[in-house]
């Protein structure tokens, strides 16, 4: 709670005073989780680093231009998500043009890569249950998968997820409920 208040204070200073030091505090708080979030989607440290740096620059521009920011976390996750999507699009179009080998090609459904590459994913695969869960998540449709990851893996609130996805929090709750139902069905959980 104390951290939440501190975070809000930094956000307030960054917005009203354009205070770089306050923004640096926000950066310190979120750089690791954004890096992980991005890395798990792009499976490349170089891309993850580039995107993470980009996320914080874009987020600064966003919060200084918009006064209706209530959750900084929601803002940076939304920006990170959009940048990742942009990267996929770029990669997809580049592949089409340059005709990169198939092994480098990113599948349309990027989240299926959660368990394909990367150190973290390999570690996840070591645990049977984790693998099972990841496989089940991979089988979910895009909309459900995203919500489950945001809510349970990244630990964001329904309101924050709603802000990231541009939906209402009621929509997010309903989608989460349906996603978990689908996940349970795949995993045959009673």
């Amino acid at each position, binding site marked *: 709670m104390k951290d939440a208040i501190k975070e809000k204070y930094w956000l*307030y200073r960054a917005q009203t005073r*354009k205070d770089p030091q306050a923004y640096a505090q926000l950066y310190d708080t979120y750089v690791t989780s954004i*890096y992980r979030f991005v890395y798990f989607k792009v499976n490349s440290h170089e891309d993850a680093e580039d995107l993470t740096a980009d996320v914080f620059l874009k987020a600064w521009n966003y919060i200084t231009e918009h006064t209706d920011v209530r959750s900084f976390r929601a803002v940076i996750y939304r920006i990170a998500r959009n940048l990742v999507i942009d990267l996929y699009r770029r990669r997809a179009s580049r592949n089409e043009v340059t005709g990169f080998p198939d092994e480098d090609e990113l599948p349309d459904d990027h989240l299926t890569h959660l368990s394909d590459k990367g150190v973290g994913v390999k570690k996840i695969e070591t645990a049977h249950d984790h693998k*099972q869960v990841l496989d089940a998540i991979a089988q979910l449709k895009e909309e459900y998968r995203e919500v489950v990851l945001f809510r349970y*893996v990244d630990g964001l609130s329904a309101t924050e997820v709603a802000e990231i996805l541009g939906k209402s929090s009621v929509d997010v709750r309903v989608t989460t409920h349906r996603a978990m139902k689908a996940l349970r069905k795949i995993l045959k959980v*009673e």
Partner: protein
Amino acid sequence: MTRRQLRHNLHQLNDVRGNINPRAAFVHATREHLLSTLSNTGSTPRVRMFSFANMWLLLSIFIPPRTVYAVVRPIVLMGVAFGIATGSWVTGAFASLNSVPGDVWYPVKIGIENTTVAVVGATQGTSAKTQLQAEYATRRLDEAQKVIAEPEKAMEAVQRFKDSMTEVNATLEHLKNSDSVTAVDIAKSMDVHATRYLVQIDQAKVLAEVAGDDSVKDAVIAAEAAVGVTSVKTVEVYVDSLAKGNDAISKDEVRQIVDKKLLEIESKVAGATEDVNGAVKSVQASPLQPSMVAEKSKVIAPAMQVQRKSEEVREVVAKTKVLLEEDNVAAAALQIRVLGPATMEVTAQAKIVQQAAMDVDAAAKLAVPLTPVTTKSIEITPAASTTVSSTIQIPSTTPNVQE
């Protein structure tokens, strides 16, 4: 796998992901890069310490959105609305307090007064309402004095004063028959106010005289008449109350009031007589040409009337005093009904006589240089005054005109 285990595994995915960390060098370098970029591009504009926009931002950041929308925003909006409403009202009220007819704020002042009178009337009754009207009427006379040099504005203020008096008189008339206790309360208060009004009216009359606008002067005299009517009404209220035998006012109180009014009347009539005598004397002393004798009659005839009327008033006053001595207070009080208007008539006519005398005096002064017989000199000699016929002799006590 149970539901709980599923949730646990989902949360653990994050722990597993926790093994992946960005390089320390990357984190540090990006931080430095960010700081330098923001410092260079942000140029940290100086932001005011307090502004409503920042205040609102602070609220929306620190208070959960739902609370902001459901509770804080309505409260803030209501507060702002209230602030604007009362703020502008207070500003308007203060700004309008010293306004006079013709000012931008004057209608606001009148509006506020009317609203206050209406509210007080509805909540505290007729007595409080009339009291307030009487207070506001004083303001009208003050305003009239301030703008006496501008006839239209002065007329507006005087007219408003007269309207207030008319309303007060109507209230007294109405209450006299229904609620004599309240009527007596109002009457007593109006007697006090009337004394003050008459002082103000006297000042206004002098100012109107100086300003030289007859319409304003006439309006002020009409306002005086309205006050006179109020004075008469108050006496009627007292008499009615005595007749009904309620405790609203005692006989002694009425006696004192009547005594006081009689003294006022005597003093006014004495003043009017003195004015008229002075006017007559000045006309007699004026070096008038024989052709201007007719002018004199314009002073003398009304002067006689005033003196006759004054005598009548004095007789009625004496009669009223006798009634008081005989303890016939009600009858004495009723004489005030007659005496009031009569006194006003006397004073008004006295003023006319005075004015006529001044006109004659002015005409005489203009005429004198032309009279000196055959000399070429236009020098005014003291001897000129001796040529004036002073055939008119009007004793101060018994008017007698000889032409």
